């Protein structure tokens, strides 16, 4: 016993010295045989528990599984290891939980019998509690993330693999289980956003932007193609070599947020661009919002700060009072307020009638009224449209045309007064009629079979129909336009509207016009026939000188067609030398309206120029305005040729006549000399008379020659300075030799030279003086004067002879004109002297005229420019 006791004590000492908490239990009662301080500390008990059964010593373990486990080991000998097992132990009078790792090992005697159980334990309470706390925290985080719809992801940048939680898989619509690669992730992203994501990831893992990753993109579900907006944020972590070894973060579904933001923007866009006025104001009338239409209508600039404006700015004083004092109070929660208000444009001050709807705006939380919203529709167009419609209705009512309105079956709804009168129907009959009643049978068939189908497809028809007079049965031809009227919303046809014009007056007028047109055409044909029959070119011109008609005669000789000649085309054939004077004369006539007459040359088909005598007169209206020019061109080429031949003949004849006259005169003078030398004065006198007659004959021949030269433009001039009065003196001396009856009184006051053709001017003075003598047979003197008048020298010859009647005075300078005297006096001559004188003076740029009183005498004068240098060569 003693050895056994000592062994027991030894064992107890061993347990107590054990470095870890330990205890030994024996017997079926699981009596605590030994326990060191560590174990007692676990139990929160003292040495008194030793020797007591466990259930008694640590009663709180009753019901826990430890005692049973020890008993099991005691019976079976199979060791038991506990891991982080929870034990409820009373510490400081309070049951507390502790966690232990422990072992129960069977204690055997040398014979192998089980004598007890050895218990060693390690308190892991703190470790377990810490782990539990971590787990709880993680659980809470997971719960929070799940609640917030946030998924987590973890990318291994080295291996390009990604760890996703379930939420992330859901967000990316990714159905594959297990680890995924970075490319798998990219495949889930919307193609448009993929570059953005790639770029953001690349920036993060290359440590740009401190490794921060924040991007919003769309994913497309691989399961159902659903589009999800994802906001992904993360952080890259780098090792000492600055290489990213981890890149993790969260992903959040923002589809709703994006959607609601978009909806808000869409709504605001809708409001902003609404064509109706929309505004919000507080109940005091301070504006908070106005859309674009409201700003336009009320004259508020789009960038104007509306907080500076109030509702008062947009009403007249009386309307503001009505709105603020009455209408606002009538706005109800349920229906708001609707009615017409006159708003005012603050710039133009125009009052604009508007259909306005007010609603009250309440605070969502408190229900308190915080303002009013208004929508307003500008009624001006509607009012105008209504007014126009009213006017239209009035016009239709009083229209003289037939206007009707039927339903789609043709039942009459309306016919205007003129229409009823046209078809002989009263209003009562109208109500029960349909359109087939008052159209002819033929027209009714056309309406049913052709017109109605066309109306339904194209909406309108127009053409000729016939109405049937309800009383007389007369068929009335009309031109009708039919339109289909459709319901505004469904666009279903609801009626036909028609307007018709009675064609009878037109048909009647048309017949008259047709008759008159026929007559006119006949008249025009006759006139054209006449115009083409006359042997001259006939033309008409606009008041501006543009030819608008030429008869067929034109093309007989002209090188260009009638069409090409119209307008001013004919002028292309005009001889270049005739252009200037022709256009001058034509323009002058267009200005004055005086008759036009000219001779010019036009090119013919052979390229030769032909002379034409052109005459035109203007047709004028009552105010004297020119309406049209009527002209004719007569081909005078042959006439001109004959004139030329005549002039040539006269020229040659005159010249040839002078040759025998010269010899006759010479013979006569020889004869006279011979008679005188022989003393036969009687015969000498006869021969002298013969010589005078030879002189007369010579003068006549001379005149004819001069006229020929004038007409052929061959009158030659040789200008040089000469003493004018000296020339006159010489002429007087010469003339006085031939006339012994008349005394020539001279008053020559012009002293000096002039420039001109001395011979020609001398010829004129001779002519005036010899005429003065010739036409004053009963007078005995003549007065000749010269003087300077401005830049001209003026010469006058006054006689006291037979004079010239006023009506003849203009003609004395014409070719072959002769003043006739009384029965007692006849005056020989060809009537060419004054004509030649006048032509010479004209050529010298001078002027010649006569003052005369019949029976009293005449004064012939001419004036010539002293310097003679302004000669108009065109004359």
């Amino acid at each position: 016993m003693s050895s056994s006791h000592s062994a027991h004590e030894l064992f107890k000492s061993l347990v107590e010295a054990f470095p870890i908490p330990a205890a030994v239990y024996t017997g079926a009662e699981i009596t605590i045989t030994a326990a060191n301080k560590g174990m007692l500390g676990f139990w929160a008990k003292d040495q008194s528990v030793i020797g007591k059964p466990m259930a008694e010593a640590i009663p709180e373990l009753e019901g826990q599984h430890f005692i049973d486990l020890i008993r099991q080991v005691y019976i079976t000998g199979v060791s038991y290891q506990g891991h982080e097992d929870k034990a409820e132990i009373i510490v400081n009078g309070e049951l507390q939980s502790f966690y232990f790792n422990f072992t129960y090992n069977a204690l055997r005697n040398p014979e192998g019998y089980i004598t007890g159980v050895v218990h060693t334990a390690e308190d892991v309470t703190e470790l377990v509690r810490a782990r539990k706390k971590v787990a709880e925290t993680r659980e809470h985080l997971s719960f929070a993330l799940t609640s917030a719809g946030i998924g987590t992801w973890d990318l291994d940048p080295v291996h390009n693999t990604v760890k996703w939680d379930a939420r992330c898989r859901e967000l990316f619509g990714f159905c594959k289980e297990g680890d995924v690669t970075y490319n798998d992730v990219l495949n889930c992203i919307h193609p448009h956003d993929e570059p953005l994501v790639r770029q953001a990831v690349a920036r993060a893992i290359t440590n740009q932007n401190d490794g921060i990753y924040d991007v919003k993109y769309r994913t497309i579900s691989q399961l159902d193609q659903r589009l999800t907006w994802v906001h992904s944020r993360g952080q890259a972590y780098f090792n000492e070599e600055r290489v990213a070894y981890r890149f993790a973060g969260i992903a959040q579904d923002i589809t709703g947020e994006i959607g609601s933001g978009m909806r808000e923007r869409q709504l605001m866009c809708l409001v902003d661009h609404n064509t109706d006025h929309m505004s919000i104001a507080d109940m005091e009338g301070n504006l908070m919002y106005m859309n674009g239409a409201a700003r336009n209508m009320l004259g508020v600039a789009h960038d104007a700060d509306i907080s500076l404006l109030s509702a008062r700015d947009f009403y007249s004083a009386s309307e503001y009072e009505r709105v603020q004092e009455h209408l606002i109070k009538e706005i109800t929660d349920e229906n708001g307020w609707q009615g017409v208000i006159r708003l005012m444009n603050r710039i133009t001050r125009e009052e604009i009638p508007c259909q306005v709807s007010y609603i009250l705006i309440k605070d969502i939380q408190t229900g308190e009224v915080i303002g009013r919203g208004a929508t307003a529709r500008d009624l001006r167009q509607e009012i105008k449209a209504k007014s126009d419609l009213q006017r239209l209705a009035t016009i239709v009512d009083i229209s003289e045309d037939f206007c009707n309105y039927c339903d789609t079956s043709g039942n009459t709804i309306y016919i205007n007064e003129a229409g009823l009168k046209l078809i002989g129907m009263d209003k009562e009959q109208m109500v029960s009629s349909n359109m087939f009643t008052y159209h002819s049978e033929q027209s009714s068939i056309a309406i049913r079979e052709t017109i109605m189908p066309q109306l339904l497809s194209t909406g309108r028809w127009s053409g000729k129909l016939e109405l049937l007079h309800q009383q007389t049965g007369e068929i009335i031809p009309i031109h009708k336009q039919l339109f289909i009227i459709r319901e505004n919303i469904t666009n279903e046809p609801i009626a036909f509207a028609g307007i018709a014009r009675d064609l009878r007056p037109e048909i009647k007028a048309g017949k008259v016009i047709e008759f008159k047109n026929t007559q006119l055409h006949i008249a025009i044909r006759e006139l054209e026939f006449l115009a083409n029959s006359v042997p001259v070119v006939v033309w008409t011109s606009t008041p501006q000188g543009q030819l608008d008609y030429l008869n067929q005669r034109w093309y007989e000789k002209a090188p260009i067609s009638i069409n090409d000649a119209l307008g001013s085309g004919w002028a292309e054939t005009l001889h270049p030398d005739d252009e200037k004077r022709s256009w001058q004369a034509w323009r002058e006539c267009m200005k004055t309206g005086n008759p036009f007459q000219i001779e010019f040359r036009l090119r013919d088909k052979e390229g030769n120029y032909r002379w034409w005598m052109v005459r035109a007169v203007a047709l004028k209206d009552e105010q004297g305005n020119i309406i049209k020019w009527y002209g004719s061109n007569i081909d005078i080429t042959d006439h001109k040729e004959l004139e030329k031949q005549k002039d040539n003949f006269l020229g040659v004849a005159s010249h040839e006549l002078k040759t025998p006259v010269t010899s006759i005169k010479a013979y006569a003078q020889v004869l006279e000399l011979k008679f005188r030398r022989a003393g036969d004065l009687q015969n000498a006198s006869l021969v002298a008379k013969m010589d005078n007659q030879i002189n007369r004959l010579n003068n006549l021949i001379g005149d004819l020659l001069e006229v020929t030269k004038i007409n052929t433009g061959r009158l030659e001039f040789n200008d040089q300075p000469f003493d004018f009065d000296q020339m006159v003196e010489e002429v007087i001396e010469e003339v006085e030799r031939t006339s012994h009856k008349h005394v020539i009184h001279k008053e020559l006051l012009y002293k000096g030279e002039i420039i001109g053709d001395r011979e020609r001017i001398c010829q004129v003075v001779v002519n005036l003086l010899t005429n003065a003598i010739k036409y004053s047979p009963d007078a005995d003197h003549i007065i000749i004067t010269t003087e300077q008048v401005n830049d001209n020298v003026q010469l006058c010859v006054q006689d006291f002879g037979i004079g010239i009647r006023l009506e003849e005075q203009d003609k004395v300078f014409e070719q072959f004109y002769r003043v006739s005297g009384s029965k007692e006096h006849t005056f020989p001559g060809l009537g060419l002297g004054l004509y030649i004188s006048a032509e010479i003076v004209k050529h010298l740029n001078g002027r010649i005229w006569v003052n005369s009183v019949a029976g009293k005498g005449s004064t012939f004068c001419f004036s010539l420019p002293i310097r003679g240098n302004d000669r108009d060569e065109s004359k």
Partner: protein
Amino acid sequence: METKTKTIFIADDDEAIVDATSMMLEMVGYDVRHTLNGAEVESGLTVRPDLVLLDIWMSGIDGRDVCRKIKADPLTGNIPVLMISASREIRDSALASGADDFLAKPFDMDTLLEKIARLIY
């Protein structure tokens, strides 16, 4: 002292004019020579006339050309030339060709004699 008779050379293609004028001049004492052919005027001048009475139109010969030749020749250039023509207008061109004076046909005997006398003496 006997005065030498003056010789006048008439060149005109009209025989009647030459005849009548010759009579007229011979009656007052001139020695008259003549030609009816314009081409023979120059040869006629070998008689050294004191004056040439030269018609301008002579059957295709222009008297002004003849006058220019007479005046251009040193042997005949000092012989006075009195040109006659039915055309007054020719006066200036006649004088321009070198003629000493001009007389229009038909002419007065007095005027002719006056002009001749003025040119010869």
